């Protein structure tokens, strides 16, 4: 990756106060995510992955070190960073189309009605939601909600996409279809992506690089380059090189999961 770095973690540590004193969640982590790079972060549950994403999203700050976005410190959440939460957070009181239009009606990204309509139509088409424009979210399946969350985040044209276990709740088939759709959309619109995942398969399939985190407190175990060229398609899963890389990452991750399991009594975050 020769492109310029956009998200930079510089000796970042995070501590949370607990009843038993300070708990170290992230310890001295440094890495950079380059422009249009797809980076997956993988590691045991409760190891601090989501914490790192929350810092980039602007919901919390590091206890030590700095996280910068294009060289500037992060001051709160903003529409330049689209966030896909694990639980999606689809607004149940708005229809599918109104959900997508929500961001476009805010002062921060004000668009006129014609443009708004075009953007809504485009993403509904792209995500296969056109027939459900007026439907309430409660009527949608898990995969459709996921696509709606993606469409809503995309509508405000974020440069970054921060995704926390976005496909975790989906069945295996839907999950694969959503991964391909994501790659397709990224190929068309080019964004810098930070993906938190538990799935080694998913990380290898989607990313330019994979950052494997250790058990808590999270440090970087290893950063792995994924050499496969985009566009990627599902037959990649069957390639021998894919299998080897997957085995390598899985081994690292399993070791750290085992480590984390041993220290479990220390309370969860």
């Amino acid at each position, binding site marked *: 990756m020769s492109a310029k770095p956009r998200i930079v973690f510089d000796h970042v540590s995070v501590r949370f106060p607990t009843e038993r004193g300070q708990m170290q969640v992230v310890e001295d982590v440094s890495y950079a995510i380059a422009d249009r790079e797809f980076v997956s972060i993988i590691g045991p549950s409760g190891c601090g992955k989501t914490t790192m994403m929350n810092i980039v*999203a*602007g*919901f919390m700050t590091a206890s030590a070190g700095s996280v910068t976005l294009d060289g500037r410190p992060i001051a*709160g*959440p*903003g*529409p330049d*960073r*689209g*966030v896909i*939460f694990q*639980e999606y*957070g689809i*607004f*149940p*009181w*708005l229809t599918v189309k109104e959900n997508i239009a*929500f*961001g476009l*009606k*805010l*002062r*921060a*990204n004000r668009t006129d009605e014609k443009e708004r309509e075009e953007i809504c139509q485009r993403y509904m088409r792209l995500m296969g939601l056109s027939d459900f424009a007026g439907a*309430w*979210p*409660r009527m949608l399946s898990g995969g459709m909600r996921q696509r709606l969350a993606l469409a*809503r*985040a995309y509508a*405000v044209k974020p440069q970054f996409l921060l995704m926390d276990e976005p496909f975790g709740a989906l069945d295996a088939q839907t999950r694969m279809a959503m991964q391909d759709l994501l790659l397709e959309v990224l190929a068309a619109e080019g964004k810098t992506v930070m993906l938190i995942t538990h799935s080694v398969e998913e990380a290898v399939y989607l990313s330019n690089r994979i950052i494997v985190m250790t058990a808590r407190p999270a440090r970087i175990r290893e950063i792995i380059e994924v050499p496969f060229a985009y566009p990627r398609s599902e037959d990649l899963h069957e390639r021998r090189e894919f299998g080897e890389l997957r085995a390598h990452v899985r081994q690292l991750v399993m070791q750290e999961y085992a480590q984390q399991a041993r220290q479990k009594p220390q309370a969860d975050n």
Partner: protein
Amino acid sequence: MITRFAVILVPWLLLVAVWYAIHYSGFINPSLVPTPHAVALRGWELMHSRLPLDIVMSTQRVFTGVLSGIIVAVPVGFVLGWYRNVRSLIDPLINFFRALPPIALIPLVIVYFGVDELAKTVILFYASFFAGVIVMYEGISQISPIYVRVARTLGASDSEIFRKVILPLAVPHMLTALRVALGVAWATLVASELIAAQQGLGALIQNAGSFFQLDIIYVGIICIGFIALIMDLALRALSRRFLSWQERLA
């Protein structure tokens, strides 16, 4: 359409039938249970004398009390629900006052506010406020913070988050608060009219009681029931109009 009509009508017809059965069964002295048609006839008569005013007075009192109570309960309940530390501070007080039955306060209210309309409004305000504030703050405190987070990542300002996220999420709780307050206020109203009022359905029942006019008592009770039913139906229609996005409607 006909079956729908029948479904609505059948339980009422059944009730009237049971009523007749009790009257003619002989288990109870028939003079203590007026027949439905006697009550209907008395109701018709009263419609041409004091009943319309009684209904208007009672309904009006409930409206003023509930409206004023809810207007205060919504913002207070909102603040208590939203700010956790304020809630833990105020919670015991709210529960103390809520636990006091409004009827128990009537003598005190009479001392301070007399026996005018104001006294009744104060009692109904009290009843509606505490019923509404609890529903409101428990509802608000259960709103998931995820929606606010999502809105922020899309670029929403504080005021936009309030108008476009929190307000729509609060509407169902406002409507529930209104419904609960209406129920409580109605119960309290009749009690307060029993004690100190010339007009109103409670007063009607109380006066009839003093003269052993059982049929009038029944007329009063039926009116109270029907008015409460109509109000509840109206509120449900309102909920349907505003909450079509929700999974299940009451």
